[in-house]
């Protein structure tokens, strides 16, 4: 039965933890607050160590909180991260997204920095600053940086933050046995989508949307084990999804994957969602990593990485690339569908559309079509933001939710 305006605006008939107010996906003030409260204090994946394999290799990263960063491997082999902002006149220091730079020199006035963040040259320093300011006063702003969980470079903007292992907790325990061998990146691309970053993370946090994917329906949903996959929530808003044996050969044009992953059962598939916008996705022969970089409340850039093993033969690597592209490349069968899905949500939820609620009410004993993964995320969101996602403006707890609570 279609709804009147009053019925459309009325809170859903679920417990308040089982839906969110759509305005958390569109409001600029909420978005600005999210950058401060969700992204700034969180550990975020900036890149993989294989992207900066040699001394002085660097990689730029636009941190989701808004800060431009340089991740660089030092002359001592250690990886560090700095603001890509010259301490002199606030200019960009490095422009190319990656490279090798023994000295990082700002083109504006040629101030130069080494791979440890020390200023090593100020042009005409003595003439201009006499003894009032020197190289020791002009170091780069360093941010916390750790290599962890498969050789990924994690960064944190808060100096006194807890270690990354404390932030992740046990969420990646399920994947650690499969990340013991050195990995290597073979794929990187970005998708720019007019949607909210949380909607992308939501998509990675629920499998009910497998109905959009013919590939997943035929190779997964219709196969044994699919409905036994279970979600597990972890502190700090992270969640994991258990494995099954995907039947790749059920899709015309696909076949059982010849190249597997050390220790992983044939056809195995684990997903781990890391708060507030990252996903590890180990699917049989390829590890995919998503990192959401929000631009605005209705605009996000998602970085996609594909990784194989550093020890791959040419044939093995070629097969991993093929497996990756079949579903996850820019022309892949699944990624386009997922991105269309969140693009559609962005269209329907932008300001003025009168989108009101997003339901997360499915309960199936934490199995694959349960929406507990999203609920777990928004519980952490509410904790960090200091108000519930179902009532972000403190307009009063909706009546049905009150009863349910």
């Amino acid at each position, binding site marked *: 039965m279609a709804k009147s305006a009053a019925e459309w605006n009325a809170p859903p008939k679920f417990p308040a933890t089982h839906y969110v107010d759509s305005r958390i996906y569109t409001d600029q003030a909420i978005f600005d607050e999210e950058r401060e409260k969700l992204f700034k204090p969180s550990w975020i994946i900036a890149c993989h160590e294989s*992207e900066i394999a040699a001394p002085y290799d660097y*990689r730029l990263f636009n941190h989701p909180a808004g800060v431009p960063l340089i991740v660089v491997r030092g002359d001592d082999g250690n990886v560090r991260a700095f603001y890509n902002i010259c301490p002199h006149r606030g200019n960009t220091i490095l422009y*190319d*997204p*990656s*490279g090798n730079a023994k000295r990082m020199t700002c083109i504006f006035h040629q101030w130069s920095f080494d791979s440890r963040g020390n200023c090593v040259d100020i042009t005409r320093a003595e003439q201009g600053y006499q003894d009032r300011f020197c190289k020791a006063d002009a170091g780069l702003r360093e941010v916390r940086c750790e290599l962890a969980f498969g050789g990924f470079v994690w960064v944190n903007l808060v100096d006194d933050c807890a270690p990354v292992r404390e932030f992740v907790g046990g969420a990646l325990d399920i994947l650690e046995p499969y990340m013991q061998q050195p990995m290597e*990146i*073979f*794929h*990187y*691309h*970005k*998708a*720019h*989508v007019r949607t909210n970053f949380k909607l992308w993370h939501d998509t990675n946090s629920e499998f009910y949307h497998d109905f*959009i994917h*013919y*590939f997943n329906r035929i190779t997964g949903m219709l196969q044994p084990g699919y409905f036994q996959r279970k979600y597990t929530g972890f502190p700090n808003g992270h969640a994991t999804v258990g494995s099954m044996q995907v039947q790749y050969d059920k*899709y*015309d*044009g696909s076949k059982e994957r010849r190249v597997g992953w050390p220790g992983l059962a044939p056809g195995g598939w684990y997903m781990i969602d890391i708060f507030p916008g990252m996903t590890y996705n180990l699917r049989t022969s390829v590890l995919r990593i998503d990192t959401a970089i929000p631009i605005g409340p209705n605009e996000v850039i998602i970085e996609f990485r594909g990784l194989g093993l550093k020890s791959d033969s040419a044939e093995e690597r070629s097969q991993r*690339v*093929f497996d990756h*592209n079949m579903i996850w*490349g*820019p*022309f*892949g*069968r699944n*990624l*386009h*569908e997922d*991105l*269309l899905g969140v*693009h559609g949500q962005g269209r329907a939820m932008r300001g003025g559309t009168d989108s009101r609620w997003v339901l997360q009410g499915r309960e199936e004993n934490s199995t694959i079509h349960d929406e507990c993964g999203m609920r777990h995320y928004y519980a952490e969101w509410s904790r960090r933001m200091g108000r519930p996602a179902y009532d972000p403006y403190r307009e009063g707890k909706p009546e049905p939710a009150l009863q349910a609570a």
Partner: protein
Amino acid sequence: MAKPELRQAIEELIYRSCLALDAGEYKAFLAMCENDFRYTIATYSPEIRRDMVWLDHDRKGMETLFGNLPKHNSDHSPLTRHATVYTVEIDGDVANVVSALQVFRTLLDGGATELFAVGRFHDTVKLDGADAKLARRLVKLETRLLGYGYHVPF
């Protein structure tokens, strides 16, 4: 240097391949391809400083890809492929052809057209008298930001 009539036949093959794909006439496109046809989309990532392959299929793989399209949820905005043949180099019964490629996408609602991607076709054309067929198509993309992507190859 290719003879004018041969070059014309080769150029026409490239342009007809674009027209067929634009129209979704996949059988017509495949009819322009050799049995051992191979199609690849590749690009270079300055971010990770690596060559990347984004799609790679033999003829059978392309047939399957086209055949599966109706089973998938896809963006239905039509593409318009604009190719300009730059160079044709004849080597016996093979021509190596490099063409500039621009791909435009036209939105169904309102009909706005946007530039979707630029790159080049690196085609290998098999010559058999007056007959010319695609033996290999390598699409080398410059554009890497493709929004929510697309299911149909360029």
